[in-house]
């Protein structure tokens, strides 16, 4: 971090950092501090009466089976998104690494879903899976599956997982591809000369060498599943049915905006902040060191 050659000036550095620091204070720290402050208050919707209640909002949250359910839903959701997102992308990246002809074309064709907003990904897949008119629904019904995610919670979860995984494939794919291409060919060749089959080589050499990338993607996908999937949930299930897809961030939004429950929503925000901080710490301390490009 230290550079030997520096400039000296009494005022210039401050002027240079001022815009960013100003915006950071006004739009990050001030609201975050307010969230913490509100989480200790009990208020009516209009803020006309406020009472300081200490940690009571938090206690209420942890006694609320809805909130605990929301934790569970979020955990399940991010586990599914992480697992399938990584597995499918790894498969695609390994195959793409292998082919010589058309590699660029495949790469181009597989990375553009990154450009699609999660909210739109949700709309697209909801259309395909629409209980009455969706094309995939039609095929499923033909196979005897009773598809109706409006009433079946597990199906609703499946829908949002599919949309989220689809959205994230490009990102995971790119990192795996880069990771694969940085593995020294000499290692692979040596193993092949020893008689190892491609599958053996993959599991004993490639996969372990990819583990930093995998771990890194796991953390990133978890953060993605926690936060960026808000758009998917809002345009499709809105947390339903019966809370089956009520991820934590959606509950914060619902309670704050739709139900005007400022104290509860702020307390949830504070808890989410703690989770993000933990995830970020993990990402920086344990992962960044080891990922190779």
């Amino acid at each position, binding site marked *: 971090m230290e550079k030997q050659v520096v400039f000296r000036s009494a005022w210039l550095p401050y002027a240079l950092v001022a815009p960013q620091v100003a915006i950071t204070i006004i739009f990050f720290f001030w609201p975050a501090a307010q969230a913490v402050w509100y989480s200790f208050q009990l208020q009516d919707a209009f803020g006309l009466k406020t009472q300081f209640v200490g940690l009571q909002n938090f206690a209420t949250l942890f006694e609320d089976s809805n909130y605990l359910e929301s934790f569970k839903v979020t955990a399940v959701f991010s586990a599914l998104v992480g697992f399938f997102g990584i597995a499918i992308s790894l498969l695609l990246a390994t195959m793409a690494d292998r*082919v010589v002809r058309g590699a660029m074309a495949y790469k181009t064709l*597989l990375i553009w879903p990154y450009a699609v907003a999660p909210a739109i990904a949700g709309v697209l897949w909801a259309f395909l899976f629409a209980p009455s008119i969706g*094309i995939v629904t039609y095929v499923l019904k033909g196979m005897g599956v009773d598809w109706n995610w409006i009433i079946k919670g597990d199906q609703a979860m499946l829908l949002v997982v599919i949309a989220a995984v689809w959205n994230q494939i490009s990102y995971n794919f790119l990192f795996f591809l880069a990771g694969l291409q940085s593995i020294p060919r000499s290692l692979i060749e040596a193993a092949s000369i020893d008689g190892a089959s491609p599958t053996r080589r993959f599991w004993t050499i490639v996969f372990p060498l990819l583990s930093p990338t995998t771990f890194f993607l796991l953390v990133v996908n978890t953060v993605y599943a926690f936060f960026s999937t808000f758009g998917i949930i*809002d345009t499709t299930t809105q947390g339903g049915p019966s809370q089956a897809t009520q991820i934590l961030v959606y509950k914060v939004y619902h309670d704050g905006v739709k139900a005007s429950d400022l104290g509860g929503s702020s307390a949830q925000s504070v808890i989410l902040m703690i989770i993000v901080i933990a995830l970020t710490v993990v990402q920086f301390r344990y992962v960044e060191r080891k990922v190779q490009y």
Partner: protein
Amino acid sequence: MVENRPWLNAFAHGVLIVGVIVVAFPVYVTFIASTLTLEQTLQVPMQLLPGDQLLQNYAQVLGAGSHKGSKAAVSQMLLNSLVMALAIPIGKIAISILSSFAIVYFRFPLRMFFFWMIFVTLMLPVEVRIIPTFQVVASLGMLNTYAGLTIPLIASATATFLFRQFFLTVPGELVEAARIDGAGPMRFFWDVLMPLSKTSIAALFVIQFIYGWNQYLWPLLITTDESMYTTVIGIKRMIVGSDSANEWNLIMATAILAMLPPAVVVLAMQKWFVKGLVDTEK
């Protein structure tokens, strides 16, 4: 590829082709739906070949939105999305490159303090401070304004880190040379550092363009005026009922319009896009 195994190659191609098809399928269906009439989209199963309503549907949404849902013209929404998609990267890059420059190339009290302050914002995505940020913006009178849509989103740590990372790799000799020539810090910045940073800036621009264009939660919170909707939000507002009550052909036309610019950017600037993704995660 180490040895030549034809069946494995065929398998690899097979998997990749299936992957490409699965990835493209939803968008293909969306495109088809955007060329049909409403009745045709409600047919089960919906046809998989393009219809003839392409011009009508797109003209309709661009001019006057949907019939049953929001009537806001998508052309206005595209403009709003564009404003966000341009203002955010430009703003972000501008203030981040300046603060990175200050943090890397100067010694001053509070330097580390500012650095950590910016770092901490990584842990505060907008989703964890929704309501208070909304209130701050409301009390500043910035609801339903371009300023409100963009300014809160331009202070970011990732851009600052990217530039810092890059600046650390710039050889010290260049600074020495500038000093010897009598150039001040800002001259150094403009004449030496900026040109060197071009690829990083381009990479960051691509990623942030997509980020700005695809913003959902923030515009959802602070825009209630139809004239300020972004395209992504506009789609949500067109979905008014259950699956058979929505005007899917128009919704899908809007979705295609919403996906097009970022997709074009990704494909046309693929190299920078990949670099941007990879670099910002370092």
